[in-house]
């Protein structure tokens, strides 16, 4: 064989050992019960084999035993309950990215991964991250459903069109690891993969700053803000102002209150009439088809940069 082949995946994130420990537990349970069943079947099969053609059955047959039935109902029940709670614990913890996570944006499209860092650095089918820093991926797709899967980190999540999903991890070992598209997405599905490069913080910093124009995502968003004419309304009071908007509750005309999250901003750009801010007329045209998913992310980054504290109120 041309390659040495591994039997167990690398553990390269904080999550990996936790998942693996649970995996060992399940494997122990599985091996125990498989062995139990196999040995019993084998033992009975040999011991009670029919020796002559019309051999009578052994005496004192048991065909029903309630305590036994209860036992083999309750024991599996306890075991699966342990598995459930153990697994759920890890799952829930992993569902919520830590607040200090570095955000990186991922856009899936047939059949490549487009990744953008907040400082404006972009890469394709590669993801560079620093070691020992929690990373949060905000992901969306430009066409069909994809899935961002890093085996060495034990995480995956579907990447859906017209929606943001998130995934987070904290790499623990410097190195180079596969990531795959794990949701069948058409012809080039199996080619839609790349490498995660986990780097020391210094290397990462060097990589991040090399070859960047100095234009951050937020800067690009600001350019778009002017280019698409957002400023004509949102900068003049005809539409709601952006400063201090992000993360704040917004009151809508139908009486609901929503939080101005990434998803809310995205929806407001692409489907402006879906949620109308209280006190403003529904006059905003849709930008669906005019702005790409990437530009939406840049605009969002710009709005974010205006802060939730109301800093930079003066801009545009």
């Amino acid at each position, binding site marked *: 064989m041309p390659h040495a082949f591994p039997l167990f995946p690398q553990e390269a994130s904080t999550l990996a050992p936790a998942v693996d420990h649970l995996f060992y537990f399940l494997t122990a349970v599985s091996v125990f019960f498989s062995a139990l069943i196999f040995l019993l079947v084998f033992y009975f099969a040999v011991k009670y084999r029919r020796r002559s053609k019309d051999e009578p059955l052994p005496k004192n047959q048991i065909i029903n035993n309630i305590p036994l039935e209860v036992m083999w109902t309750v024991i599996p029940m306890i075991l699966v309950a342990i598995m459930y709670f153990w697994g759920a614990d890890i799952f829930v913890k992993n*569902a*919520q*990215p830590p*607040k*200090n*996570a*570095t*955000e990186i944006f991922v856009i899936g499209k047939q059949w490549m991964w487009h990744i953008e*860092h*907040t*400082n404006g650095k972009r890469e394709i089918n590669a993801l560079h991250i620093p070691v020992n820093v929690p990373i949060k991926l*905000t992901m969306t797709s430009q066409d069909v459903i994809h899935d961002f899967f890093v085996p060495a980190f034990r995480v995956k999540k579907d990447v859906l069109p017209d929606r*943001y*999903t*998130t995934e987070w991890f904290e790499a623990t070992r410097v190195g180079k690891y596969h990531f795959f598209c794990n949701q069948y997405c058409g012809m080039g599905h199996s080619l839609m993969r790349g490498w995660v490069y986990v780097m020391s913080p210094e290397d990462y*910093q060097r990589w*991040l*700053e090399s070859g960047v124009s*100095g*234009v*951050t995502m*937020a*800067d690009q968003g*600001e350019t778009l803000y002017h280019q698409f004419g957002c400023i004509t309304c949102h900068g003049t009071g005809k539409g709601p102002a952006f400063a201090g908007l*992000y*993360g704040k509750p917004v009151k809508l005309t139908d009486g609901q209150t929503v*939080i101005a*999250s*990434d*998803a809310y901003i995205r929806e407001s750009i692409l489907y402006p009439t879906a949620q109308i801010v209280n006190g403003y007329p529904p006059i905003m045209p849709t930008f669906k088809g005019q702005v790409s998913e990437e530009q939406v992310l840049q605009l969002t980054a710009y709005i*974010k*940069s*205006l*802060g*939730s*504290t109301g*800093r*930079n109120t003066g*801009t545009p």
Partner: protein
Amino acid sequence: MYFVVFFSLLTLTLLTWQIAYIDLGRWNMVVALIISITKTVLVAAFFMHLRWSASMVRLVVFAAVFWLAIMLTLTLGDIFTRNMVSQPQPWQASSVVSQPTTAGSPQR
């Protein structure tokens, strides 16, 4: 008997139609569904003779409603709890500042 059922059904139709023009907020739908269920019970019990049917047949009806309820509950259960956790967290301005990655952003 069929005619009694028929006229109650017509009355209920009239009722549900007229009530619909009164704005009761979310109660409109509740009232409409209660009336629909009443009408269904009438049709099933009398026109379809469910009142006099074998218990097995009633079990089938129960099973249908039961599984429909499963489908509705678990599917809606997902849709309406989806944003409770998976919504991206509000932006943490402080964390951005603490990251060297945002060097050059307007906040700096």
